């Protein structure tokens, strides 16, 4: 898989963060330096990375099956959370309200059921760890603890 410049930058940032961590002990860096969210999957999920468009399609349930096999189980965060706001704006390209509105239409017209909105990073991570077909996102500061983050291109 080709490594894009953005990813190289993130890798550099990660290396820098590691250096900081080594120098000042393990602690959270500033918001500027940490990613706003990590996209996490089950450790057994063979997906290496996803681009934003593929990710948006998964979270809007336009893509419903993993390429390797099985149904995709996306999981959302609370609409009040910052990470949800960032994720919706950056990945889905819309405001949380717009996304919710779209889901409400889908709900009542019976087109689809929105991904469950979980109240915290921990709950998301817990969900992902339990379900090999799940995919979620957590805030950048969250400790992944067994879930696997995949890079977003």
């Amino acid at each position, binding site marked *: 898989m080709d490594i894009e410049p953005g990813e190289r930058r993130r890798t550099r940032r990660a290396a820098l963060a590691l250096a900081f961590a080594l120098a000042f002990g393990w602690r959270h860096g500033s918001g500027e330096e940490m990613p706003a969210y990590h996209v996490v999957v089950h450790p057994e999920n063979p997906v290496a990375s996803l681009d934003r468009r593929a990710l948006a399609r998964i979270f809007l349930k336009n893509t419903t099956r993993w390429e390797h096999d099985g149904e995709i189980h996306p999981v959302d965060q609370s609409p009040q959370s910052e990470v949800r706001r960032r994720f919706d704006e950056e990945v889905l390209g819309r405001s949380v309200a717009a996304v919710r*509105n779209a889901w*409400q239409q889908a709900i*009542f*017209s*019976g087109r689809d059921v929105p991904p*469950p909105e979980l109240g915290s990073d921990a709950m998301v991570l817990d969900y992902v760890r339990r379900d090999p077909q799940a995919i979620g996102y957590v805030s950048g500061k969250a400790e992944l603890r067994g879930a696997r983050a995949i890079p977003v291109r």
Partner: protein
Amino acid sequence: MRQPTLRRRLQLIIALAAAMLLAMPVVDVLSVREVNGGVEALEHEYVPLLRVGADAQARLVALTRAFQEAVAAQDPEALEATAAQKAELEALLSEAPALVDRADLALLRRHLDEWYASAFGVSQELFSGVVGEELTVRIADMQEKHRVVERDLERSLTLDPARLAAGFERARRVGLYGLWARMSIRVPLTILVVALAIATARRLVRSLDTLRDGFERIGRGEFDRPVPAEGRDELADAARHANRMAGNLKALDAELRRGNAELERTNRELESFSYSVSHDLRAPLRSVDGFSQAVLEDYGDRLPEQGQDYLRRVRAGAQRMAALVDDLLRLSRVGRAELHRAQVDVSALARAVAEELARGSPERPVEVEVEDGLVAEGDAPLLRVVLDNLIGNAWKFAGRGARPRVEVAGLHEPGFAGFRVRDNGVGFDMAHAGRLFAPFQRLDSARDFPGTGIGLATVQRVVHRHGGRVWAQGEAGRGAEFSVLLPKTKDEG
């Protein structure tokens, strides 16, 4: 009075035909109403079904949107208001036509209730903001319930082609039934009326033929063969009347024949008598005349002039009486002689008569003009008698005119041919025309014009024996015209 059958039958035919003509539109109307009923049934069942079905689906969509909008607006009142929309949808369902299976409808209502409760609950949850894992399950459940409702609507409130086909089939059957009903009334009624009309017409024609033959026989004088009068209808009545008439005619005919025979016998006796008398009178007259002549010739010189004159008068009287007797004998012969009809050249006869007259009195300058080619049908000697008398009369009376003139010309009428004899003499007053042809009638004075007064009577008798007509026209001082028409038995040609 007996009810005439024929009239009753004709009345029956007319009544039946009228009933048929009146019944046809009535049956038509009834059967069209039947067909319309079938179509209306289709209309009453399927049109409301389509309307309710489409309406219910639209309302379900609206209700769904109302939930979504209430949630989007976070408006609990709007959420509560969905209950009214649901009630409207339920009311609409109760308008579903009888065609819809009630069990299906009950199931639909139950599923609608379940979905509504589910959607209401989900909406309330959505107000709280977070779509939890448990809520997604309920959403999925709600969506399933929604699908069930949609399926129910689809199944119970949409047009079922099989049902529609059955409806049309029913309407078609009703139409066909109407057609058969119409035909079953029309065809037998038409056959009945036509058969009745034919039978009546045949009977009518047969009866009329019989009647015509009967009248023909009566016309020929066969009064003994009555017209057959079978049955009790008007024509049989007419036949009976005809028979009665034939009976009366027969009686009249017999009476007439009897009268005729009597008359003929009397006539014969009379003629024979007058012939005998005339004949017997001639001998004494000849003696009177002959001996008077002998006295005059043998002893005339010994008689004074007056005595001679008396004797001459005796002779003239005797001669006149002899002429009278001859005329009477001729008249009698004319009445008794047998007729031998033939084509007679009237022109030649007339010229012969004129020549004889001219020879008899050469001193009379009478101009006689006879048309060429005059032909009549009759007994030649008798026609000669007619012409003798008519031309003789004309000759006699024409004598007094400035230019005495007699004209014989042709006369024609359909079926008749004849001639007229015209003079320019003294003529006569038409008021006395009726007396002209009676024996011994004389309009003129015997002194002025010699004659016995039997000539025209003889003419009339001859013409009548031929079955012809004779008549006279004239005006005092302006001549007379006598016309004779004799029937033609053969066509001219």
